[in-house]
């Protein structure tokens, strides 16, 4: 019994330090002159709301910076992708040209080889006469 009473007294004592509990329906009184009277709990509750609102606004502002930076990172990444796409197109053009020139050059090399060999044989024949 003594333990229970002690526990109850402790709970009642420390209840004064509890978070403000405001009943917005009953703890706010409108005065005749147009002002309003708040209980202490409602006053504290409004303070908590303002604190949280200011904190949220500050966090939102920071998050906007985060979004802008992420957008910038995405833009750079997209530009990088576009760069490699353009580079591959330019390289494709060059490789096509090299391929075309190379294949025709092989034919020319073969042809010139045959012609020069034939000329050498003919010239040797001419000189032998």
């Amino acid at each position, binding site marked *: 019994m003594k333990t229970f009473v002690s526990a109850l007294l402790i709970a009642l004592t420390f209840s004064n330090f509890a978070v403000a509990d405001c009943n917005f329906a009953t703890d706010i009184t409108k005065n005749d002159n147009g002002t309003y009277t708040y209980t202490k709990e409602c006053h504290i509750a409004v303070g908590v709301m303002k*604190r*949280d609102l200011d904190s949220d606004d500050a966090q939102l502002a920071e998050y906007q910076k*985060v979004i802008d930076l992420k957008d910038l990172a995405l833009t750079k990444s997209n530009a990088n992708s576009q760069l490699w796409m353009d580079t591959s197109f330019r*390289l494709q053009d060059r490789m096509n040209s090299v391929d075309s020139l190379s294949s025709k050059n092989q034919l020319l090399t073969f042809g010139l080889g045959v012609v020069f060999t034939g000329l050498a044989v003919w010239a040797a024949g001419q000189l032998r006469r």
Partner: protein
Amino acid sequence: MDQKIKDLWNNNKVLFFLLIPLVAVWFGRNIIIDLLVSSSNKVVGDATGKSDKLTHESDAANAQANQIKAQADVTAAKKDPVTEDWNKK
């Protein structure tokens, strides 16, 4: 023998002169191929440099964004206690 070579040249130099353009074309095409390959290497080199720069900038922006978000979360989690004179501050 020298006279035979001279006669062979004098009688057929037109034919040899006709072959020189073909040889020149062959050399020219090889030079063009070398230039195209060199140009391609330069294109890849330039693109690699630009790509490295863009990657670095993207990573830096991401890192800065993550840092700002972490700081914002820490600041938002800190809730200073509200006293009776909060409206006077």
